[in-house]
């Protein structure tokens, strides 16, 4: 195979220097259950190592083992050396001297990682004082400068605030400030941005990069998001079933993956830069439980390249290229199939390799897919009367204070005038960050009651004028699928009862056969009917939820983040299921999600919400390819792509600050406080309009089409930079 050619130069790891951290054959057992097996890697100064894997793959346990933070019930074997000093089996006192000073950690949940009763500044100062002989005042000064470094505005004031007064993004910044307080050589970030919104995630990732540049520390970035790693990491370690299955430079792993699991992961991620024309390819089955690993290669049962020899022994890591290891006995076949398709492609080396990875996946399915795509387009053609029309929907919550005599101290404007329509057979994606009012909107629609203001018209019936019988009839045609599949299924009911409940409620007999039919429809076995929801994996549970929603053959399905609780490889299967059900049964979807990439794959039209109002609405291709509202532009540019070369070359529109409180929205345009256009492009005179008048959703573009944006100065801009259509 040809040596790797990297056109864009990543911040090159100084490979000559000695590694900061050297992990050899690390293993962790809880009782008899191995959580981590044979993990070996090294990290050099200034290098970013991405550790990716699905939930339960052992990434977080690895991190805890390195930090020595595992409970005493865990047995750790192997060796972890920090600057040549062995950490496994070291006494707590020794480790305490290192933790926070030589290595530090950023946790996933920044709220529980900060002590709620101490001021943020004091907590950072404490981290400084533990390892450095400085006075309280000096430590506080250092804390303030650290807060300034991680980009917290007015750091001297904010240092006196308590953690609950910080927003999620600010807390995570404070955590990073604490982690770099003592100029550590190694920072371990355990899913640092998973709990954050995309625009905030982009900010935090910037801070991490800055922190790395300032301190020269090595970073181990643990995440399940392949996009985050692509832009940040130099090398990637892919974990599966507690063990690394592929290690290599970012470009090698993303463009020339040799392990079928990595290939599958890359193919199953929905991407903002590619629409519905490409069907996602899920990895079959679900990850094995660490207590019952299959014989041989743990990925064997799910692997498309599986042969008999795979079950004989667990494959070691083969050297498939310089610095590139993969645990697959058939890595050469994988390489050959990718090379074959790469020949026909043209373009830059990186582009070519990227397409090769993509094409290798789509090739065998190409004919079938063309048909599917056409079918999907046909279904997308809007026809007939809207099944759901929302006009100027408003929902306020009173803010009450006082224990005995509650008095109103304010109003939370959760939804402040939202309008959209869904035609038959159409999917509308409702996207936005947390707190933008998308779930409130959805609940208001589902209540089928008179809204506080505005109108909700379902199947031509105004909800304000519904009688009980009509409401019941509409409930039959409109069903809902919730975000958390476990929470939305009654744990005390068998799957049969769960799926049969809508049938019983609406007085339909013969549930046994219909339930079996529905279960097969969503890809489950009819025999599963007598089990309980918790006997299933996440993806299967969501299928049960979908089966229940389909029981009454509804016309409109309301989906509240149906895939956000699922792992990437499982998520693709559910998305595909929803897409094929829609095409088959002629359903209309209202698809609420925060993940824009998922929406791009499933929706025909998309509405972007910001602070209770719709910022932009239009057909998916129009909005994603040429967003007109500055917020949509920032949102789209903040989403990391699982494509290292493009991630590095992308221009990101960073939003400053956090979402304003919906209790006190800014006057005029709600987005103006964070709007990059308002701040940099517009002149003083132009800004007056933004401050004074709230923009309505108006059509944009020439000729005025479906797309509309709520911005006085809307202007189309391509931020995702879709690849040239190479097909």
């Amino acid at each position, binding site marked *: 195979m040809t040596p790797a050619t990297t056109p864009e130069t990543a911040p090159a790891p100084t490979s000559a220097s000695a590694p900061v951290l050297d992990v050899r054959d690390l293993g962790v057992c809880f009782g008899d259950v191995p959580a981590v097996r044979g993990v070996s890697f090294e990290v050099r100064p200034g290098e970013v190592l991405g550790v990716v894997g699905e939930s339960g793959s052992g990434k977080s346990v690895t991190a805890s083992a390195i930090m020595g933070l595992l409970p005493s019930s865990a047995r750790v074997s192997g060796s972890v050396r920090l600057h040549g000093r062995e950490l496994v089996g070291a006494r707590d006192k020794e480790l305490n001297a290192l933790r926070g000073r030589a290595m530090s950690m950023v946790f996933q949940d920044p709220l529980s990682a900060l002590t709620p009763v101490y001021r943020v500044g004091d907590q950072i100062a404490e981290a400084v004082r533990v390892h450095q002989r400085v006075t309280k005042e000096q430590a506080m000064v250092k804390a303030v400068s650290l807060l300034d470094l991680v980009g917290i505005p007015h750091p001297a004031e904010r240092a006196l605030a308590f953690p609950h007064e910080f927003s999620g993004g600010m807390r995570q910044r404070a955590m990073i400030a604490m982690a770099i307080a003592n100029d550590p050589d190694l920072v371990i970030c355990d899913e640092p941005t998973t709990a954050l919104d995309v625009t905030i995630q982009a900010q935090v990732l910037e801070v991490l990069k800055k922190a790395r540049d300032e301190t020269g520390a090595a970073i181990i970035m643990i995440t399940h998001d392949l996009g985050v790693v692509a832009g940040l990491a130099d090398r990637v370690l892919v974990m599966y079933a507690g063990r690394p299955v592929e290690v290599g430079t970012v470009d090698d792993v993303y463009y020339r993956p040799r392990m079928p699991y990595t290939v599958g992961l890359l193919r199953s991620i929905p991407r903002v830069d590619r629409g519905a024309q490409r069907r996602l*390819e*899920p990895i*079959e*089955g679900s990850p094995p439980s660490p207590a019952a690993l299959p014989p041989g290669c743990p990925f064997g049962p799910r692997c498309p390249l599986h042969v008999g020899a795979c079950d004989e022994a667990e494959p070691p890591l083969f050297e498939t290229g310089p610095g590139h290891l993969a645990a697959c006995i058939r890595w050469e076949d994988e390489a050959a199939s990718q090379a074959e398709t790469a020949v026909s492609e043209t373009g830059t080396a990186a582009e070519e390799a990227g397409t090769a990875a993509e094409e290798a996946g789509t090739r065998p399915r190409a004919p*079938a897919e063309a048909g*599917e795509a056409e*079918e999907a387009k046909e279904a997308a053609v809007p026809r007939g009367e809207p099944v759901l029309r929302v006009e100027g929907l408003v929902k306020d919550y009173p803010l009450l204070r006082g224990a005995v005599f509650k008095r109103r101290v304010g109003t939370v404007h959760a939804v402040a005038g939202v309008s959209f329509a869904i035609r038959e057979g159409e999917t509308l994606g409702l996207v936005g960050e947390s707190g933008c009012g998308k779930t409130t909107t959805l609940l208001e629609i*589902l209540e089928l009651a008179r809204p506080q203001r505005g109108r909700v018209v379902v199947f031509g019936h105004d909800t304000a004028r519904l009688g009980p019988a009509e*409401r*019941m009839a509409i*409930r*039959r045609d409109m*069903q*809902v699928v*919730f*975000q*958390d599949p476990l*929470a*939305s*299924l*009654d*744990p*005390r*009911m*068998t799957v*049969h*009862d769960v799926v*049969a*409940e*809508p049938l019983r*409620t*609406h007085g339909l007999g013969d*549930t*046994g*056969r219909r*339930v*079996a*039919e529905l279960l*097969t*429809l*969503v*890809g489950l076995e*009819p025999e599963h*009917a*007598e089990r*309980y*929801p*918790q*006997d299933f994996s996440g*993806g299967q549970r969501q299928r049960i939820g979908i089966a*229940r929603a389909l029981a009454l053959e509804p016309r409109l399905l309301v989906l509240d983040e149906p895939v956000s609780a699922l792992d990437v490889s499982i998520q693709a*299967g559910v998305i*595909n*299921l929803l897409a*094929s*059900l829609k*095409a*088959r049964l002629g359903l209309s979807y209202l698809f609420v999600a925060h993940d824009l990439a998922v929406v791009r794959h499933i929706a025909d039209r998309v509405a972007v919400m910001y602070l209770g109002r719709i910022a932009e609405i239009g057909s998916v291709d129009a909005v994603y390819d040429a967003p007109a509202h500055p917020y949509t532009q920032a949102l789209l540019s903040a989403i990391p792509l699982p494509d290292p070369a493009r991630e590095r070359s992308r221009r990101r529109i960073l939003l400053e600050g956090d979402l304003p409180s919906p209790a006190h929205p800014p006057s005029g345009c709600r987005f103006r406080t964070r709007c990059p256009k308002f701040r940099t492009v517009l002149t003083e005179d132009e800004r007056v309009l933004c401050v004074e008048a709230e923009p309505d959703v108006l059509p944009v573009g020439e000729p005025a089409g479906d797309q509309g944006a709520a911005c006085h100065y809307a202007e189309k801009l391509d931020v995702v930079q879709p690849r040239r259509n190479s097909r």
Partner: protein
Amino acid sequence: MTLPEEEVAEELTPGVPGRGPRRAPSRGRVVVRRFLRSRQGAAGLAVLVVMFLLAFAGPLLSPWSYTDRDFTAFLQPPSASHWFGTLQTGADVYAVTLRGMQKSLIVGLLAALVSTALAALVGAFAGYFPGWADRTLTWLTDLLLVLPAFLILAIMSPVFGEGTWALFVLMLSLFLWMVTSKIVRSMTVSLKRREFIQAARFMGVRPVTIIFRHVLPNLSSLLIVDATLNVSAAILTETSLSYFGFGIQPPDVSFGTLIADGSKTAVYAPWTFWFVAGLLVVTVLAVNLVGDALRDAFDPTSTRPR
């Protein structure tokens, strides 16, 4: 687990080929099956059945009735003619104990069931329907909680003459439910926010149906444990009432009166006390076994084989 279009098309055609009509595996069936498969549940149930048989069919085996007095045998140890011995009055301990068991079994089990049902209903309705329903029910619960139950029972007990044991059961259970009801109410309030309740609401399920179908089954662990504890509580409350001379009046007997009398002579005539006490312990134990098995059968997360 992909689903190609062709497969979907196939599966959409009605009927699943190759499988006969199966009985729908609804929750009721699964719970019954899991309960019967549990060994301790079956054992507990068997013991309870034996106790009932003993209480109601047992007296037929003995020539003595609980009102009879054998004036030739006062305070005699167990023998061929008096299997459990006799009391100081010459009454046959076997006959008297079984008569007492009849009363105590019925009173205990019924009172426990009624009080737990009352607690579940009042708690769930108060928790599910905010507003005036919640306020009224909570007020009622609080009122009964502050009234000294024992005093009221004592005052009312002269009313419970012969044949009004049903009223007695009702009064007994009326003072056992309040604390559980408050727990049920708060648990219902938090359950109501769960997504599966919302899912049922948006499906069009009526609120009362939701309470019976979703809320109460999800509280079943609590309710079953509560009912099991209430059995012994009811038997003992009845016992202590009878001990004070209220409740079951002579010449009728119950476990309470028997234990009260027997405890005086237990030291030198153990048969007057230990048979009654032993049967009470066995009864409570059996009820606990049944309760445990029932809870496991209802709880899908229990690790017992099903």
